C-alpha cells in the first residue's frame, strides 16, 4: 500500500516529545481493519490504560509496539525515534531488523499467559536477557535479577522452574524478567486475565509499586476497571479500532460523554 511518508517527521524534537507516539497507524488482517488511523501519544512516566470490548484492537496496540505485529500504514515513534521506520537518505523507509531490535530494547512486555521459559528457573528467566542481550556478566546479571525478584516478592522461589509456580507467581517473575532489561516503556497485556481471582492482587500490587517507584512509561490493557481507575493517569476507551473516548479515570469512568463508552462501562460494571 502506498502512502505519503512526507507527512511523518524523521524524528520528534522539541520540549514535549512523547515517549510513545502512534501517528495515523492502521492495522489490517486481510479485509478486517483492526486499527484505523490511530493517533495516540503517551508522555514519559505516564500510565495509560486501554479498555474496550474484545476485538476493538486494544491488544494489537501493545503487540505493534512490541513489534510482534507489523503495521500497514502510519508510523510509531518511541522516545522520539521512529520504531516501525528508519531514516534513509532523508526519508522514512521500513525499519530493518537491526533497527527494530535497537529501538525495541526500550520496550518490555508482560503477557496474559506469562510465557516464562519453562526450561529455566525463575532466576534464569530474569538473567537470560541481561546476559545474552545486554552482555552483563553472570554475577552482575544475577545480582540485578535477585533484586528484581525480591521486589516482586519472588526471591525465595528463585530456583524453581515455572511449572512449580502458581499463575500469580509466574506473572510476578515475568514482570521481573521484563524489568531486568531496563525498559523505558512497559506493556501489560491483560496480565491478570488468566489468574484466579484470589491471586490477582499479588500482581496488581506489584504493578502499583512500579507506578510509585519508577519513572516508567506504562501501557496496560485490562478488564479490571477498578484497578485501572486507581493507577492510571489516563484511560482510553477503544471501539472498532479507534479511540472512542479518553480522559482522566475519574472523568472517563464517572461521566463518560460517549454512548458506547457508557454502554461498555455499564456492561462491565454489571458483570463485576
Amino acid at each position, binding site marked *: 500500500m502506498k502512502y505519503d511518508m512526507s507527512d511523518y517527521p524523521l524524528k520528534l524534537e522539541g520540549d514535549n516529545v512523547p515517549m510513545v507516539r502512534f501517528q495515523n497507524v492502521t492495522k489490517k488482517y486481510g479485509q478486517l481493519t483492526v486499527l484505523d488511523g490511530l493517533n495516540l501519544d503517551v508522555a514519559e512516566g505516564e500510565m495509560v490504560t486501554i479498555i474496550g470490548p474484545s476485538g476493538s484492537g486494544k491488544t494489537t496496540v501493545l503487540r505493534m509496539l*512490541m*513489534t*510482534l505485529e507489523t503495521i500497514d500504514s502510519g508510523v510509531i515513534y518511541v522516545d522520539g525515534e521512529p520504531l516501525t521506520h528508519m531514516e534513509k537518505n532523508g526519508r522514512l523507509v521500513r525499519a530493518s531488523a537491526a533497527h527494530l*531490535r535497537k529501538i*525495541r*530494547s526500550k*520496550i*518490555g*512486555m508482560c*503477557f496474559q*499467559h506469562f*510465557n*516464562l*521459559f*519453562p*526450561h*529455566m*528457573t525463575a532466576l534464569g528467566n530474569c538473567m*537470560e*536477557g541481561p546476559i*545474552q*542481550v545486554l552482555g552483563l556478566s553472570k554475577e552482575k546479571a544475577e545480582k540485578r535479577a535477585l533484586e528484581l525478584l525480591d521486589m516482586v516478592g519472588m526471591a525465595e522461589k528463585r530456583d524453581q*522452574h*515455572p*511449572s*512449580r509456580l502458581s499463575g500469580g507467581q509466574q506473572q510476578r517473575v*515475568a514482570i521481573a*524478567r*521484563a524489568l*531486568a*532489561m531496563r525498559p523505558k516503556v512497559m506493556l501489560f497485556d491483560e496480565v491478570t486475565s488468566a489468574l484466579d481471582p484470589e491471586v490477582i492482587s499479588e500482581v496488581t500490587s506489584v504493578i502499583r509499586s512500579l507506578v510509585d517507584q519508577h519513572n516508567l512509561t506504562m501501557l496496560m490493557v485490562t478488564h479490571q476497571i477498578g484497578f485501572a481507575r486507581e493507577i492510571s493517569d489516563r484511560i482510553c476507551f477503544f471501539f472498532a479500532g479507534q479511540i472512542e473516548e479518553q480522559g482522566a479515570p475519574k472523568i472517563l469512568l464517572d461521566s463518560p460523554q460517549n454512548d458506547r463508552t457508557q454502554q461498555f462501562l455499564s456492561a462491565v460494571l454489571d458483570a463485576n
Partner: protein
Amino acid sequence: MLDWKLDFTWEILPRLIAAAGNTLVAAGGGYLVAVVLGLVFALAQRTPSRTLTFIVRELVEFVRSTPLLLQIFFIYYVGPQFGLRLSPWAAGLIAIGLHYAAYLSEVYRGGIENVPKGQWEAARAINLSTVQTYRRIIIPQALPPALAGMGNYLVGILKDTPMLSVIGVAELMHTANSIGADNFRYLEPYTIVGLIFLAISLPTAWLIRRFDKALRRKMGLTR
C-alpha cells in the same frame, strides 16, 4: 537337528566382536552426520527464503521416498561419474547419514513447531536475536519431545548398518557373510550377529529412555 559347533563359535567370535566395533562406528558416525545435518534441514525449512525452503523440502521428500540401499549404491558407484570418488566407509556414512537426516529433520520440525508461539514472543520481548532465540529458547524446548523419535532412529540406523556390507564396509553382516562363505556354516555366525545386535540395541533403547526422563526433569518440564 540343531548342530551348533562350540569350537567353531569360539574361533569366529573374536572376528565378529571386532566387526561389531565397526558396526558401532558406522552407526555412531552415521548418526552424528544425521543429527547435525537433520537440524540444518529443519532450520533451512524455516528461513524466510522460499527457494531454500523449497529445495530442502524436496530433497527431504526425495530421500524419504527412495530406498536407502539405492542411495548407498548411488553415492558409491555413480558418485565417481560426478567426480565424487569415495571410500566405502565415507560413501556409507554419507548415505546413511543423509538418509536419517531426512527423517530426523521431520522429528526436529515437529519439536520446533510444538513450542508455543508465546515463547517466540517472550524471546522477542527481551530482545533476543533470532539465533539466540533458537539456541537458548526454542531448541532446548523442542529437543525433549523430539528425543523419543531421535532414539528410535538411533536404533534404526544401527539396524540399517548391514546395508553398508553391499559396498564392502566390514561391519557385522559383511563379516558374518564371509565367515559363512568360507566355512559353509551360517548358523553360528548369523546367530551371533543377531545376539550382538540385541546386546547393543536393548541397552541403547534403555539408556535413551533414562536420558529422556533425566533431561525432562532437569529442564523442569515435568513435575
